[in-house]
């Protein structure tokens, strides 16, 4: 009887008290972009619901929104000096790197939670890029490659962290704008919203949206991938046609 009581107590302490619930919604679940697309934003709205027993927290809430684009197999290479020339030598593979990675927070991420929790739960861009399953570890040799991936992707606007990206409209309702640059690849984007209070995770939701390219360029791209022989022949025919046209137009005899 006593052991059963202890076990019950243990179980209760293991199950987190579900005091707050998080409800989120995206402004769009499908983004259509055409060839003159210059970038857009998707809005995430969220509300925090407290059940009757929970008292209001003194510190207030923090929200971290993490957006991951379709995965890519990336190779990062480093040019090194070999004799007089610079050539690609070392390389590091990133088998499932997200093509797009956006982290939006309501406050600088270092203030929201501790280093250890960020590393463990992969909260924040740095924690994600430095996580152990992101790329094979090679006793520190992988570090410059992780940094380079981050730097190069950030230059393209594809990896970003915005510490003022989430705005609280009221203490319980927030909104965040996910910026999608023109270079964002089509595919499925996962949106994870994590609710923090006083450095601990209270709740998490996950949703997603799809980026779909439409229009002429995308159709051409699809043909180039799926019908490559036809595409090559078509390009050849176009080239010959133009050559013939020029010959006819500029005929000298």
């Amino acid at each position, binding site marked *: 009887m006593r052991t059963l009581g202890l076990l019950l107590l243990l179980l209760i302490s293991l199950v987190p008290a579900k005091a707050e619930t998080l409800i989120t919604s995206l402004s769009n679940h499908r983004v259509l972009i055409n060839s003159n697309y210059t970038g857009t934003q998707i809005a995430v709205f969220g509300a925090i619901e407290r059940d009757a027993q929970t008292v209001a927290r003194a510190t207030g809430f923090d929200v971290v929104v993490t957006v991951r684009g379709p*995965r890519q197999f*990336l190779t990062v290479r*480093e040019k090194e000096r070999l004799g007089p*020339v610079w050539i690609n030598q070392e390389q590091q593979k990133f088998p499932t790197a997200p093509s797009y990675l956006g982290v939006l927070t309501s406050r600088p991420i270092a203030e929201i939670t501790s280093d250890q929790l960020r590393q463990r739960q992969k909260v924040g861009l740095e924690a994600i890029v430095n996580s152990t399953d992101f790329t094979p570890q090679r006793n520190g040799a992988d570090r410059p490659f992780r940094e380079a*991936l981050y730097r190069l992707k950030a230059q393209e606007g594809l990896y970003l962290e915005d510490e003022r990206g989430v705005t609280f409209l009221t203490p319980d309702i927030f909104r965040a704008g996910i910026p999608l640059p023109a270079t964002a690849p089509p595919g499925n984007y996962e949106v994870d919203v994590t609710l923090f209070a006083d450095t601990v995770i209270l709740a998490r939701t996950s949703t997603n949206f799809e980026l779909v390219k439409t229009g002429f360029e995308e159709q051409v791209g699809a043909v180039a991938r799926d019908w490559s022989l036809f595409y*090559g022949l078509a390009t050849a025919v*176009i080239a*010959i046609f133009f*050559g013939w046209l020029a*010959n006819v137009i500029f005929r000298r005899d």
Partner: protein
Amino acid sequence: MPVSVLLILGMGAAVGFISGLFGIGGGFLMTPLLIFLGIPPAVAVATQSAQIVASSTTSVLSALRRDALDHKLGAILVAGGFVGSALGVWFFAAARRAGQLDLVIVISYVTLFTVVGSLMLKESIREFWHRRKGGTVRLRRKAGEHAPYLGWPLRMRFYRSKLYVSVIPILGLSLFIGFAGALLGIGGGFIVVPALLYVFRVPTNVVVGTSQFQIVCTTLVALVLHAVTNQAVDMVLAILLIVGGVFGAQFGARMGRHLRAELFRFLLALLLLAVGLRFGLELVLQPKEPFSITTQEVRT
């Protein structure tokens, strides 16, 4: 690829003008320019081949009308060129997988351009010198004198070119041109023409037509192979390059008729050396960003 449409059209026209001026394909200029613009070398090389097809089609058609084409020699060149092209595209894909494609392209350009450029420069300066001294340009051709490899087995008679030579060196030349063309996005006219003229002594009136015929055929194969194996052909970019190039070339050709031959060869040599040097610098100077990312596959 966010590159301005007008810029590409303008570049196509400018390169077309130069190619018309010098009577060359222009691929060797356009491909480096595209690479300097930031277009991935793979796409630049593969797409440029479409432009080469277009410009060579124009010259082959007018050569056909003037009957300035040796069909038999052309066919032999094409046969070797096909094999070379296929090898080139295969090598291109292999180098791309190994992550060394950029290096291969840059080194090949540096070597090719410095060698061909300095040979031409030397030749044109010597020619210029002779003319200054008042003498006529000495033709180094002597009757009955042939390089020994022209007499190798498998000799064949080419009536139109007044040739009776071994097929082996011709196949070797076209194999090399096909390979270099597929790898570097050049037609190779600036190598084939001098080779046919000076090494095989093909009469001048059939040289250009025949070499252009070979270029059209091999580049066509390279284009389709690039599209299938590397999927690096960009049709929109190709059309822009073609439109710019085709018209630029016509105006260049008109200009070219007023240019003196040795001055023209001198300018072309300088141009080749400059492009070669520019590539060489890229290789030797410390890169601002030593790291680069390549996408191997997209997982959705």
